[in-house]
């Protein structure tokens, strides 16, 4: 069974979730093709082989330098029509979800979006997907014949061990659209440089109403920095204007599943839980011992976050020699 995996690049390097997709592709099929689109992609091609691709189809062109819907969908849909893979996978990032939706529309294929489990049942994909803001799971299956598409939630599938010695055939293809046939032009990009993306983070330190104001995030950021983690926030803190929306975790923000989620001054409304309940270990720090967040947490500390966070930061600094 042939599986295509779109390898998503960020600054020329594959994102970790694309490796997770390659790992799953090897379990589902016996021929894995990595699709690498971009400009100057040779390192990414090597990485695709190291993480499990048997073959790589590469398109290296200025018109593909940054992900855009139209040229990427046209290229992917064309390759799917030409090679008829049984399955097409990508990470469920904003780009991956758009791209596979567009390509599935073009080839008339079934799509299972943002899945946390994926298996084959009689040759058809079957998935588990969190729905309704993560409050319940939906079990869904592809019913139609033809190529089947699925996007995989970040960190829901294990990342395979790379093997730098692996290699294979590289097929070079041209873009499907000329630049003047593409309606969307990217005028400028403000990169979220220096910050660890919430969706990719192993460790997240998040805070809510309890920080009391924008300056209250200082001890939160200090702890995140020592741990090499990202800073999250509850809706209450974002709505109050204390921290930008891109930090919001929850039903109307990002859904994350880090190894460690430290929730400080967050009561744990059901909408917030929806965004973080799949974290491996949750630590709750709250003045109110009855706060719902303690029901999710493995460890809890009852007290003032302004007292506890600096002491935790100091302890980590000592133990991690930072």
């Amino acid at each position: 069974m042939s599986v295509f995996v779109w390898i998503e690049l960020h600054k020329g390097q594959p994102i970790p979730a694309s490796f997770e997709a390659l790992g799953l592709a090897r379990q589902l099929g016996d021929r894995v093709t990595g699709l690498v689109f971009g400009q100057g992609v040779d390192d990414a091609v090597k990485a695709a082989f190291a993480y499990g691709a048997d073959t790589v189809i590469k398109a290296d062109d200025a018109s593909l330098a940054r992900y855009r819907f139209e040229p990427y969908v046209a290229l992917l849909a064309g390759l799917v029509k030409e090679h008829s893979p049984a399955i097409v996978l990508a990470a469920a990032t904003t780009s991956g979800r758009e791209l596979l939706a567009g390509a599935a529309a073009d080839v008339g294929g079934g799509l299972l979006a943002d899945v946390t489990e994926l298996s084959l049942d009689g040759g058809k994909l079957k998935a588990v997907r969190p729905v309704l803001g993560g409050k319940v799971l939906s079990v869904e299956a592809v019913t139609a014949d033809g190529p089947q598409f699925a996007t995989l939630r970040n960190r829901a599938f294990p990342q395979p061990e790379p093997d730098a010695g692996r290699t294979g055939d590289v097929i070079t293809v041209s873009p499907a659209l000329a630049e003047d046939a593409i309606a969307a032009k990217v005028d400028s990009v403000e990169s979220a440089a220096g910050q660890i993306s919430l969706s990719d983070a192993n460790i997240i330190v998040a805070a809510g109403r309890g920080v009391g104001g924008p300056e209250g995030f200082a001890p939160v950021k200090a702890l995140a920095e020592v741990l090499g983690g990202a800073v999250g926030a509850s809706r209450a803190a974002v709505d109050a204007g204390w921290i930008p929306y891109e930090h919001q975790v929850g039903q109307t923000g990002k859904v994350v599943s880090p190894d460690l989620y430290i929730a400080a001054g967050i009561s744990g409304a059901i909408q917030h839980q929806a965004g973080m309940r799949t974290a491996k270990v949750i630590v709750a720090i709250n003045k109110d011992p009855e706060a719902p967040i303690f029901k999710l947490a493995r460890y809890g500390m009852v007290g003032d976050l302004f007292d506890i966070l600096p002491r935790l930061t100091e302890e980590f600094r000592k133990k991690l020699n930072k």
Partner: protein
Amino acid sequence: MHVAVITNCTPDTAAAVAIDSGGNLKFDDKLVVNPWDEYAITEAILLKEAHSGQVSIITLGGPEHEEALKHGLAIGCDQAIRIWDDALQGWDSLAYASAVAAAITKLGGVDLVIFGKELPDIASEAHIFQTARRLGWSPLGFVAKIEAIDPAARTIRVRRQVESGTETVTSRLPAVISVIKDINEPKYPTFIGIRKAAKASIPVWKLADLGLDAAAVAPKTRRLAYQDLPKREGAVEIIDDPAALVDKLLEDKVI
């Protein structure tokens, strides 16, 4: 300018949900307008105020979704349409997109289609990008701000928020956009608006009205059942000493 906004009702984010032994979903509270769509409807009205023209509001679903249409009419949408047909029962994203795209084509003269970021029931935004693809228009997803619309030059410039940062993109009209929470402060209906909307008669467009047959909207995926989330195991362990917590986390190998 003619703006079409696409909306649905959805269970309230605060509603408790339960799953019966047959894997069916049960929830107590009534449906509400998809919270993401409130931004989409408001943005459509703001565009009408800025550029004049009209706003059409469209849903796909049973009569329970008319509430979202009436909400839009009460805020200032000019006409509402409900798409429904027995053949749409069990729709998937592509069926939804095919029917909505056909309705937009039937309306004619639409310059911009606005969706809320996602439909929480299906936890997906695939139908948005597939609608754009069916129309052959460019989709701009996750829009945090419409920077400019030039109806004469037929262009739109938006700021999109994606994982890697914020992109400013210019595209041609007609276009399809999906909007996120940052874009505006949702408008709420006035009493007069609500009274006017209550009296509106809302046409139902069936597949035949859209020039589609059942095969064109045959779903390609199917929901088998709902399942409860796995329970998180064990009770919380309350720790007083930060050093003890650090040791536990190091033992758990999550650092």
